[in-house]
């Protein structure tokens, strides 16, 4: 039977097991929207294309499935760009579909035309312009394959509207055959043996775990390696949840705003076992002084991540889960008693702490949310202080519960990502930890949350300013607060939430914090809680830019 291009897209999505996509209509996707009208694939209509991309991203992070977003040509497509770049930097599987002007108009500066394959080339794993309807099914198959395998990432398909209307026979290919794309999954056995030996011989080993462990669903294997061998574990921002933070071997997050004990531990380790992490500059601090006495094992699916910044002694290219499974078979337990004792001393000497008085401290809010959710909620964050406080004070226990824009650092990510996560995990409790600045970058999604009856809870840590930039201005720019003050009470978040039909709660006293959280937990609709926190509250510890990561400032000392 012959199908139109638009119908082929829907049928292909069904073949890929997609039942939910995020998008926004427009002129050059009318045939696709017509096909969606009575299709079993449900479209969640966001209020901005950027939010559609972030929602697809949040859906992907929470479920492990490929997130799909759809927008029209030109401005619809360019509005996706920030969301695609966010997914690219964090290696999130996503397929973005954009309408394009009719093939014969491409290159003519037609109405709502943008060269979106050109624009997204550096921020997609791969992208396609559909030129012939006969290629369509193959392209969709390849797009899902590329997005979800190897080092995952976004793939864009630009789909001209005339091809959406053309017809051809539909056969969804069973296999892909891409001669230039063959990710390595199994680690080299010799390298794994060397790694096992290095671990067995180490005295001060540390596991440094990143988002790759989440992507490859390797948390179980990380737990084995750590717990069976008494190896402490620190994670990156994206690795939070890969190892349960209630385990005594957990050191929490490392890096610029990491715990002091994680940073001291990695700096003084004699062996770093990096798994699915990429030695980002926020993690290593001053590169020349990073972990001077450590040998480095690096397990990563992307060969280009290996020895990109830190020189690696034992590289193992492969899937984290596969490699760790093999590695766990041959590691002999090293003697780490003294090492763990030393780390324990650091933990006692430099605990993660915050001011505790009668004011609303954001860290206290996070701790209370943790208690109310038993550490099992899905936590999305915006970017800035709110993000770092969430990373520090919400003790993540399970993988796929931390959704945050780590690489790109996109303000406005959290709320739509939380919406996507709630749709992917209808039974989960989903919170977005926000600031009063970043929540306003995608606040229009209140409509999406309310209309789709999504009980997403948004904790706005409202300090009336762009807190992280303000913090840098305070510490490094002589308190010249250039354009970081937002004017405190604008907007009234409670009234704003109410105008959309969400529940708005304002919290101005410490003893109201827990009550508000409990109320939000019992509410079946979207909730905004406007926590009025201290403007001067800073994120500590902090490693000043360009310093070694054991040179931390602790504002409380």
């Amino acid at each position: 039977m012959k199908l139109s291009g638009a119908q082929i897209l829907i049928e292909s999505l069904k073949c890929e097991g997609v039942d939910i996509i995020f998008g926004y209509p427009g002129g050059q996707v009318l045939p696709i929207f017509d096909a969606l009208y009575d299709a079993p694939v449900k479209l969640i209509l966001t209020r901005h294309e950027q939010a559609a991309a972030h929602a697809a991203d949040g859906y992907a992070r929470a479920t492990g499935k490929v997130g799909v977003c759809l927008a029209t040509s030109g401005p619809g497509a360019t509005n996706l760009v920030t969301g695609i770049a966010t997914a690219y930097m964090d290696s999130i599987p996503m397929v973005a579909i954009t309408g394009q002007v009719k093939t014969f108009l491409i290159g003519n500066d037609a109405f709502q035309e943008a060269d979106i394959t050109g624009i997204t080339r550096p921020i997609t794993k791969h992208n396609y312009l559909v030129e012939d309807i006969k290629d369509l099914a193959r392209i969709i198959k390849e797009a899902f394959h590329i997005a979800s395998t190897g080092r995952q990432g976004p793939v864009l398909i630009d789909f001209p509207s005339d091809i959406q209307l053309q017809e051809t026979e539909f056969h969804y290919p069973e296999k892909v055959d891409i001669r230039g794309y063959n990710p390595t999954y199994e680690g080299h056995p010799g390298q794994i043996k060397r790694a096992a030996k290095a671990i067995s011989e180490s005295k001060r080993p540390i596991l440094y775990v990143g988002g790759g462990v989440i992507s490859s669903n390797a948390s179980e294997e990380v737990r084995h390696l750590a717990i069976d061998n008494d190896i402490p574990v620190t994670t990156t921002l994206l690795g939070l949840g890969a190892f349960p933070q209630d385990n005594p071997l957990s050191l929490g997050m490392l890096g610029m705003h990491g715990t002091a004990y994680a940073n001291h531990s990695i700096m003084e380790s004699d062996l770093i076992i990096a798994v699915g992490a990429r030695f980002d500059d926020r993690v290593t601090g001053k590169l020349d002084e990073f972990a001077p006495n450590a040998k480095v094992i690096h397990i990563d699916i992307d060969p280009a991540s290996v020895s990109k910044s830190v020189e690696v002694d034992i590289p193992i290219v492969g899937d984290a889960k596969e490699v760790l499974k093999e590695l766990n078979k041959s590691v002999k337990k090293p003697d780490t008693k003294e090492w763990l004792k030393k780390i324990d001393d650091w933990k006692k000497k430099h605990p993660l702490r915050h001011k505790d008085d009668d004011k609303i401290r954001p860290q206290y809010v996070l701790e209370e949310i943790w208690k109310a959710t038993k550490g099992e909620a899905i936590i999305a964050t915006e970017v800035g202080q709110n993000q770092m406080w969430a990373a520090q004070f919400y003790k993540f226990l399970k993988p796929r519960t931390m959704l945050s824009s780590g690489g790109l650092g996109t303000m406005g990510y959290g709320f739509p990502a939380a919406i996507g996560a709630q749709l992917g995990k209808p039974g989960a409790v989903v919170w977005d930890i926000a600031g009063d600045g970043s929540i306003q970058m995608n606040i229009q999604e209140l409509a999406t949350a309310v209309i789709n009856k999504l009980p997403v809870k948004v904790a706005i840590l409202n300090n009336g300013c762009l807190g992280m930039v303000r913090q840098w201005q305070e510490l490094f720019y002589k308190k010249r607060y250039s354009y970081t003050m937002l004017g405190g009470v604008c907007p009234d978040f409670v009234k704003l939430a109410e105008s959309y039909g969400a529940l708005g709660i304002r919290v101005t006293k410490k003893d109201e914090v827990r009550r508000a959280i409990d109320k939000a937990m019992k509410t079946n609709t979207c909730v905004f809680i406007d926590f009025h926190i201290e403007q001067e509250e800073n994120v500590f510890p902090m490693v000043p830019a360009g310093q070694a990561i054991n040179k931390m400032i602790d504002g409380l000392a």
Partner: protein
Amino acid sequence: MKHTISALVENKFGVLARIAGLFSARGFNISSLAVGETEDPSVSRMTIVVEGDDKTLEQIKKQLNKLIDIIKVVDFKEGKFLDRELILIKVAVSAKTREAILEAVESSGARIENAGSKSISIEAAGDETKIKALLELLRPFGILEVVRTGRIAMSIDDKGLSAGGKPEVNE
């Protein structure tokens, strides 16, 4: 240090843009780049000359390999490959210098393609050493214009880096 990288790539639109974009986005410098079809029309070969230390080169190769449309990348090492460049040079000429230029061209194995009253156009092909020597030889006469194709290179191994597919051989 200069390195010669040879890449087999899908012969599709946009592939050159992907590669050029990768170099600019990651701050790698291209000294020259030459593209052409191979024995397999679905595959093009790009010969890219880049400058950088070993670490940079390693990263360039890895990043190139990540591009879906790149089929294979090799880094040609000293001695194991042939490299050639075609160059066109226009040199100013006068009655006084004509004889000397003709001599220089002949001695270096280059060819005169056009001889006018005010300029002579010369074609030469060769490896980097040869091209450099020719340019040095002609510089005193006054070089008016230089056009270079950029380097192309081929492995001299029996197997080398072919686009695949067995050739038909009449024996």
